[in-house]
């Protein structure tokens, strides 16, 4: 397959791999503790199931990308890889969506449910989580571009017909 077609795909997959590994590292190293009213409040990513799901999905995505970059390129399972790409892109998208929803509750609270915001007490934790969500967002967009690019390169809309 021509080099000019392979390079964008390779680049996008590398960006996705880097972004999802960054997201995992930033989320796992997020912790902060504070003293409020004489009580010790410590915030870790594992206290919140949504962030554990985020780490899990990003781990699956990076493992999948790593395996895909290492196998030889003369295989005939292009269809299955396209479908798996789609599934991984959707998983990444769902993980960042859930983290943003929980992060909003942490940042602004929810007065109707009586939930107070915690970002005022543990600012470092909140910053780390924001950074991890941003990296996860980049990984999700990269995977969507991978799926769109593989659709486009089959359509070959801008090349002269054979």
């Amino acid at each position, binding site marked *: *397959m021509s080099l000019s*077609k*392979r390079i964008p*795909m*390779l680049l996008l*997959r590398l960006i996705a791999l880097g972004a999802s590994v960054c997201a995992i590292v930033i989320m796992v190293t997020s912790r902060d503790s504070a003293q409020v009213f004489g009580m010790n409040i*410590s*915030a870790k990513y594992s*206290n*919140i*199931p*949504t962030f554990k*799901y985020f780490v899990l999905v990003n781990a699956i995505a990076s493992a999948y990308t790593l395996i*895909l970059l290492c*196998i030889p*390129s*003369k*295989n005939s*399972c*292009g*269809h299955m*890889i*396209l*479908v798996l*790409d*789609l*599934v991984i*892109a*959707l998983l990444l*998208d*769902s*993980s*960042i*969506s*859930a983290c943003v*929803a*929980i992060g*909003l*509750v*942490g940042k602004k609270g*929810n007065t*109707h*449910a*009586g*939930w*107070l915001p*915690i970002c005022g007490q543990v600012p470092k934790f909140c910053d780390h989580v924001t950074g991890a969500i941003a990296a996860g967002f980049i990984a999700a967009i990269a995977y*969507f571009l991978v*799926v*769109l690019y*593989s*659709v486009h*390169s*089959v*359509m*070959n*809309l801008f*090349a002269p*017909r*054979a």
Partner: protein
Amino acid sequence: MASEGREKPEVGHDQAPAVSTKVDSIIKVLRVLAFLLTLDATLVMALNKQTKTFTVATIGTVPLRATLSAKFQHTPAFVFFVVANANAALHNLLMLAVAFAGSKLSLKGFAPLVVPVLDLVNVAIVSGGASAAVFMGQLGRNGNSHARWNKICDKFESYCNRGGAAMISSLVGVLLMIIICAVSIVRIRNHYAGYNKLPLNSSVLP
């Protein structure tokens, strides 16, 4: 098939093996189901509301009562859920109309690409909405002791149960939409691989 090399290629009319009509009807059935499920999720969540009166304190023998209500608008995640599912229901309805009327239209150029790309976009949006709602619901049901967030499902049980039912139907709808989207994308490859003489195995791997 020698005469088609001179004409501008059209989708689907010339190459219509018998398998493709069976796949077509399966896709139509799946789209009807996905439409019904997302519509159901939208309606159940949008009409989800519960009001309860609590005794907050007792002064002497007179109880002080406060009325609290749980509505879906209180939570941004549920608002996104309703909007995303409404969008997906509308999309499925439109794509059903296109699928039923498509055999009478002749599609050239970019037109056959529109359906799978729109499918992809809508699947992404609905999956995001469904997962956000699921995790907010989990937070409401279990609370979070580390963040001092109390659970609300023990007080507003029917609100939580209805929300859970909407989430389940949306998740099943997302699953069906993923299958539909994957089949649409794979079918583009089958339609176009012959014209551009691209081998099917070469374009996705790096």
